[in-house]
């Protein structure tokens, strides 16, 4: 019997439709909340859309999206290789602080040298932060999720400590670091921004994000390293049996993932932030990266699009207050989207249940006793 594809099949087979549906459901739940609060759905979503669909708004979206994309790639890379990098937050923080210190202390270097140096120190700092956790995992089997969450806080307080050092701290009243050296800035020139009417923080970090997207895809799909890392991700015992050094793979994966998160921190700092404030709470770029990686199905190109989508929600969402809608609506939408993406397991189980019951229904049943009697006679 040729089986007609039903709804559940399509959803569990086609990730794209599943994600799209989840996003739609997210907005639907958001709409329900809006109606429950007595607010206008059209006005809220209209505002969300109109703030990102003009050139200036879109340039804001791109600027917001840069760190989300790169940190999202970091988390996606770790997903592909079977570790859960919940420590991207900490790697992001040490990365951006490393870039900040480099730019302040070596501000006299020529622009291209300084920028590359900032990127490198940020990536090294992030990678080291990842490797320490990887070392704890491979050497003593300490669960990486636990140590990463703790390392996020170590990074948080380390950053606040460094930001308070006399050589780094802002000379004015601001509770922040000095501004980064002008030579370390990735901003477009003021004339260029004004002539096109872009947002004041428009910068070329997005091109770095694009390059990194392609690079991550290349590493995962086209290199032996990527193959090994993926193999460990699928089944670590089979990979080991196949001759892959599992521990080395985990360390490599965490180093690359950490370097990416660190780079994300540098890109945000050198393009948008310009300085690092003394944190009173975690800024959440690492956790946003997890969301972006989930929405992007851990596919590098998917993550790129998801990062833009997330950036649009964050920038557009920040303006919702202007029409009297609480910005928390965005959290409701994002939360719902992630929820529906994460329950893909349920779709798969539903499908399995359904096919099992169908098989039962179609299976030949033993005939009842009286039927057999009738046949005999």
């Amino acid at each position, binding site marked *: 019997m040729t089986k007609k*594809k*039903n*709804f559940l099949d*399509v*959803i569990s087979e086609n990730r794209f*439709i599943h994600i799209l*549906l989840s996003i*739609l459901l997210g*907005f*639907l739940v958001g*709409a329900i909340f809006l*109606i429950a609060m007595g607010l*206008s*759905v*059209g*006005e809220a*979503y*209209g505002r969300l859309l109109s703030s990102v669909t003009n050139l*200036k708004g879109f340039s*804001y979206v791109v600027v917001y999206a840069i760190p989300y994309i790169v940190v999202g790639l970091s988390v996606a890379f770790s997903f592909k290789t079977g570790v859960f990098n919940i420590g991207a937050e900490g790697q992001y923080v040490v990365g951006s602080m490393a870039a900040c210190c480099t730019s302040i202390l070596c501000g006299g270097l020529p622009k291209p040298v300084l920028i590359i140096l900032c990127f490198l120190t940020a990536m090294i700092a992030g990678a080291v932060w990842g490797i320490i956790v990887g070392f704890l995992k491979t050497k003593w089997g300490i669960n990486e999720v636990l140590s990463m969450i703790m390392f996020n806080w170590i990074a948080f307080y380390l950053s*606040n400590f460094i930001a*308070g050092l006399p050589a780094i701290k*802002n000379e*004015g*009243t*601001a*509770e*922040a670091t000095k501004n980064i050296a002008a030579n370390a800035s990735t901003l477009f020139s003021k004339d260029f921004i004004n002539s096109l009417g872009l*947002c*004041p*923080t428009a910068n070329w970090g997005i091109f770095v994000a694009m390059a990194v997207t392609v690079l991550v895809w290349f590493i995962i799909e086209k290199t032996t390293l990527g193959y090994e890392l993926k193999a460990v991700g699928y089944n670590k015992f089979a990979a080991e049996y196949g001759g892959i050094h599992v521990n080395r793979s985990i360390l490599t994966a965490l180093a690359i993932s950490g370097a990416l998160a660190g780079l994300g921190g540098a890109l*945000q700092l050198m393009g*948008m*932030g*310009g*300085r*690092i*404030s*003394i944190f*009173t*709470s975690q*800024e*959440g770029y690492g956790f946003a990266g997890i969301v972006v990686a989930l929405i992007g199905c851990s596919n590098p190109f998917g993550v790129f699009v998801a990062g833009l989508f997330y950036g649009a929600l964050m*920038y557009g969402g*920040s*303006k919702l*207050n*202007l029409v009297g809608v609480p*910005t928390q609506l965005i959290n409701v939408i994002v939360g719902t989207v992630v929820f529906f993406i994460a329950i893909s397991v349920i779709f798969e189980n539903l499908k399995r249940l359904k096919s099992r019951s169908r098989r039962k229904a179609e299976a030949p049943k033993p005939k009842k006793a009286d039927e057999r009697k009738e046949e005999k006679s």
Partner: protein
Amino acid sequence: MKKILALVLALCMVFALAACGSSSTAPAAAAKTKVGMVTDVGGVNDQSFNQFAWAGLQALAAEDSSFEVNYLESKTDADYQTNINTFIDEGYDLIICVGYMLADATREAAQANPDQKFAIVDDATNADLENVACLTFAQEQCSYLVGLVAGYMTESKTVGYIQGMVSDTMNLFGVGYITGVLEACPDATVLQYNANAFGDIAGGNTAAKDMITKGADVIYHAAGGTGLGMINACDEEGIWAIGVDSDQAAVLGMDCILCSALKDAGAGCVAIAKDVKAGTFSGGEHHYTLADGAINIATTGDHIPADVLEKVEAAKQAIIEGKMTVPTSTADCPQFELG
């Protein structure tokens, strides 16, 4: 496949309907004075200046419908500039930046947009700009008054003080408080702690317990959320706490709070908003004191004996009438250790 299509279409229709049903809002009246407020990373419900500024503006809009007020919350340091620019693009008449954390972003935006009117709470570094009104508050005055209370009430002659951060603005709290304590009880010891955080409840709790073991029986804080930990510690150990910014005895409903040093950022914001509407806006520093009510002492709970209250009231009158001044410089208060 058809089912999915149907579902998607159905969802689209729901959206379209919802959009049609409600998108017809009345056009805003042209003559409204639009006031936008940008919070610092504390957010609008910080029980401190962000909240008061917003509460003040909301009350203003409620009583005078010619004002339209709105706020944008900043989640990170990088959001300040974006939020300020949003209000500029929306054509707001006045942009109020809450907190000295926004000082640099305000300066940049004010210099780039000389016709846009700004106000900034708790910062005087932008006072040289013509289009920025710097709203500063005499927090040393209310701190002095609660310091007097602490000095008169302490039996162990040891009081505590927790500060959220060391800066010129924040140091005023400590200077005023310590001056008050020593005025009332010249041989008192003031234990001091800089938490370096406004949201560290656990840290505030530990610091307060440390002070209590050293004999403190009254502790004052100027540390936002960190202070909540301190107040809890005071409650557990049965000693007096002194609140800050709002009337914390009333807000938190805790009996251990002796009094609170009031600093109503909202009063300043409302005054500037009215200036903008009347066309009398002026840049430079606008200083708010006990005399205009933006600074005060709250004694909810009636824990303070009448004779102490009398002395505090007398000091308050003396300050208002200019008969005495509370020092504002750490140099005038050698006992202040944090600055």
